[in-house]
């Protein structure tokens, strides 16, 4: 049986909500990953836990990908476009050429980068 990062994340949150302390839950999660040879998926499990936590509080996981390092004003303006419970992260991807791409919950995206426009133009 393959255990997905979402399975580990759901089990971890359920353990926490049942009253287990954070340190014990963390330790048992790590040993559980090692036992099943899924240690290499630890990062994905953490991302899933963060996502579940954000959703549980009514927020969204937002990823902002900028073509170049944004100015502080631009970064602040975009971050404030989202709610207090939203988890906003940003990265720089030069392959976007210019502009920004916004992804929400890894399911919806708003691509207003130049690379996206060129792709839409020629496909």
């Amino acid at each position, binding site marked *: 049986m393959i255990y997905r990062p979402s399975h580990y994340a759901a089990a971890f949150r359920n353990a926490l909500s049942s009253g287990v302390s954070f340190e014990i839950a963390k330790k048992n999660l790590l040993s559980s990953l090692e036992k099943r040879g899924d240690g290499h998926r630890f990062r994905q499990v953490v991302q899933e836990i963060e996502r579940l936590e954000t959703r549980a509080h009514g927020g969204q996981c937002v990823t902002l990908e900028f073509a170049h390092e944004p100015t502080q004003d631009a970064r602040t303006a975009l971050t404030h476009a989202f709610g207090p419970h939203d988890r906003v992260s940003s990265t720089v991807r030069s392959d976007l050429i210019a502009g920004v791409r916004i992804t929400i919950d*890894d399911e*919806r995206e*708003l691509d207003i980068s130049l690379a996206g426009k060129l792709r839409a133009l020629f496909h």
Partner: protein
Amino acid sequence: MSYEIIEKLQREIAGYTDDPAFHQVGMVVEVGDGIARIKGLTKAVSQELLHIQTKSGDVPAIAFSLEEEFIGAIILARGEGVAVGDRVRGTGRVLSVPVCDEILGRVVTALGESADGKGTIGTEASTTYCPLERPAPDVVSRESVRMPLHTGIKAVDAMIPIGRGQRELIIGDRGTGKTAVALDTILNQMNDKGRPQVYCVYVAIGQKQSKVAQIVHKLRKAGALEYTTVVSAPAGSPAPLLYLAPFAGAAIAEYFMDKGKDVLVIYDDLSKHADAYREISLLLRRSPGREAYPGDIFYLHSRLLERAAKLDKAHGGGSFTALPIIETKLGDVAAYIPTNVISITDGQIYLESSLFNQGIRPAVNVGLSVSRVGSSAQTKAMKKVAGKLRLELAQFRELAAFVQFASDLDASTRAKIARGELLTELLKQPDGAPQAFYHTVPVLYAALNGYMEHVAKSEVRSFETRLIDYLDAHHRADILKPIETTGEMTEETEQSLKAALLKFTKE
């Protein structure tokens, strides 16, 4: 040429409108062997066309497996450019091929793109996008198969008649002439002037590119390419394209059928199609069944072949005839895939290696071949002359063991053996030389009514050729034309034929 390209690009750039909006997106989490597992795209539908955004451009894929958290997609191109982390966009539409009237005479891929180097097919305005998967016509919109589809092969047209709207399987070992039978059928559509033109689609699945090139050359040389489309998924194609090719052929056929035309589709061959589907299913981790084929292998072929139909007048009156080809191993027609397809189709033409090696070509085993539509799909003229043929050959086969002892047999048995040998020799036909049915009718009439009793076995072919030339030269109007146009041999035509045969045999 470069000026035209610049013009086209300029129009596209000038006409571009920016409409930023949120789109559903997914991400490739696993890729290999032409299969990608995608996370996200929770609203994707089965068979939806996806675009994987790779560094070198968009790569098309189809959503094949919809699982709880992932989508298993088959990549419709060389998958080397796809990497983990690539974004995937849905298109909201199922895979379809662009079809227009200009697709006749062209060679296309399983995705409907030009493969003959002659540029784009048709214009945007004239193109219709036909879905590869479409429900088969229901019972109410069909009518009985009555109009014949003449193959030009004497043995088939006389004893295993095929009708427009029928599915007739061509089955045999490798090298028994299955593709030759199919190609002769395409070539013969030039000879069948008394009926509406049949448009042909030849689907080459997993064939050698050299073989496909030879077939295209043969069709072009004979002038048959004008009404034929070749869908090519050669042996070096990824398995998804081999899987899609027959559905693309069916979609092209349905385009013409919906316009009231008669279409013939040849799937060459479905054994390779089944192997490609097995490969895809195993890579998608679907549970293997018998011979490692997935559990829905029957449904794969049944839903493809059920799309062949004869529509009633209310739905345009068009027809879609299917000639699927299956390759057997060592003559085993009881294997898994052959028995599946035999149970789906409306009959089979069984080609035997032993007959082929004896020089009987086409190597049709008349005893094991059948057409479930039968004489309903035969012209009255052919029905009249061919009625006795199967019986005579059956009797000959029973006596075949005694052939070597012919001198010890009574006169009537010797006569039956001689007649059987004559008929067997008469039914031989060279490759690429289909015979129009209005020539076959008088030839069989002559053979079955004693006009060829005196003809030696070695002279049968030349007798037949001379007889046809004689009838073409002297009796086109009173014998051949009535048979060709009406499909019947009236009393008057029969009398004319008898007189002509008497005169010809005396000469």
